[in-house]
């Protein structure tokens, strides 16, 4: 019994690895069961990414992994070694908001704000792949992100406005 418990304790070790979050390499140590969401929020202090349903149904925890929107609640932290992770904290550059953030603020696309980080990251990936998406494409791209406040109309308009701003700037 004692030996079995000792073996168990030996196995229950943290993993230590290097993650690339918002362009920075960070060394982090955490138990292997932690999801990327838990590592971001609890071990790296990046609480912009939100805990929602925790089962992959709401999109509140969406981040970009290697440039693609994925759900941080269903990705193991230890599977992110060597992959690029982008969160809402990496959007603004210096004191300047990302065009998506500016458009969301200007057009009332955030009310309670809980879905906003996931919406922003999902929209960022869309605009990087398709600079001029149709309204239908925008709706499809954010169809995995639930919002209970806005009714989505302002969010779609904000993504369209940001796309226009980004095309004019380019």
């Amino acid at each position, binding site marked *: 019994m004692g030996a079995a418990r000792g073996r168990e304790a030996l*196995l*229950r070790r943290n*993993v230590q690895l290097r993650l690339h979050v918002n362009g920075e390499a960070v060394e982090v140590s955490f*138990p*292997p*069961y*932690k*999801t990327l969401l*838990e590592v971001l929020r609890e071990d790296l202090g990046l609480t912009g990414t939100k*805990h929602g349903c*925790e*089962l*992959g*149904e709401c*999109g509140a925890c*969406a981040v970009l992994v290697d440039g*693609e*929107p*994925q*759900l941080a609640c*269903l*990705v*193991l932290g*230890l*599977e992110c070694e060597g992959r690029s992770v982008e969160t809402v904290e990496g959007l603004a550059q210096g004191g300047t908001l990302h065009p998506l953030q500016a458009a969301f603020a200007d057009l009332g696309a955030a009310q309670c704000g809980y879905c906003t980080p996931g919406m922003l990251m*999902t929209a960022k990936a869309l605009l990087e792949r398709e600079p001029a998406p149709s309204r239908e*494409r925008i709706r*499809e*791209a954010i*169809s*995995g992100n639930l919002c209970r406040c806005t009714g989505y109309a302002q969010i779609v308009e904000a993504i369209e406005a940001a796309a226009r701003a980004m095309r004019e700037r380019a």
Partner: protein
Amino acid sequence: MMRLPWFECRAPRTVAEAAAILAAEGPEAMLLAGGTDLLPNMKRRHQTPRLLVCLRRVEGLRKVSNGAALTLGAGLTLTEVLREPRIPAGLRQAAAQVATVHLRNMGTLGGNLCLDTRCTYYNQTYEWRRAIGFCLKKDGEICWVATASKRCVAVSSTDTAPALIALGARVRLVGAAGEREIALEDLYRNDGIDYLARRPDELLTEVIVPDRGWRSTYWKLRRRGAFDFPVLGVAAAARFAPDGTVLEARIALGAAASRPFLVEKAGAFLAEKKLTDEVIAEAAAIAASRAKPMDNTDLDLYWRKDVADDFVGYALRDLRGDDMRAVRLRTARYLPGEPPGLS
């Protein structure tokens, strides 16, 4: 907050290495591909493996190769499948309708084929299940859907499997002792618990889709067009003579039993016939008579039975070349997109 339970993790680089780990560790080891099915289940304590074998770094599982048949690596994400123009339309349509954009970026083709069966009494938190005394599928002794049933009736909820069965696909299973290739429909058993004929030490590595120039389509019934598991999936594929006569046809149903299955009788009925409205109605009735849904998913059971022949009819009219876009939008909030796969 739902934490995952403790586990060890191994990240093999080759299929042989992964198979050796499975053979050595036995049933306490489970495979982790995209994680979109297993990790929620682990959070709810449906599965508590001691060891996870992470497949992300295994070489060769994301290949697409085109020889006498189209070979698809089981590790391709569903997004990769729906964007690949060489893949037949029916499979791309099925992949495009699995879950949401984010989950399709994570979930894999192999993972969707091996998806755990689902039930309203099973896909609940540990505390919820404990409160009702658990069920046959996990920790309990009774099926709450059919209390006299000795068999678990949890429903097969994969979209890609019926699409691939209609296309006549085969799968390669690799174990420590060797490998085998079987027809995809033979991978499944009509048992909500023991639903796969995959041996515990085997990995599903490849899907082989014969290149037969068949027309194919997939129709999905669910509550929300943007999300949700199927409560009915209808896949149809056929090869036509230049005058429109069906030479061969295959119809497969999903979410209508504990396994996806081929309705051979409906396919055989269509051979040598033209797809007139009458022929379509009769084939649809034959196929729908095989759908035996249980009251363990979303939406009303009787309605789900009622619309089964409508959905088979939609699929066959689609194969005939009717413009089905309005029906697609109305029933599924989905339009097969251009360029291919941008659903």
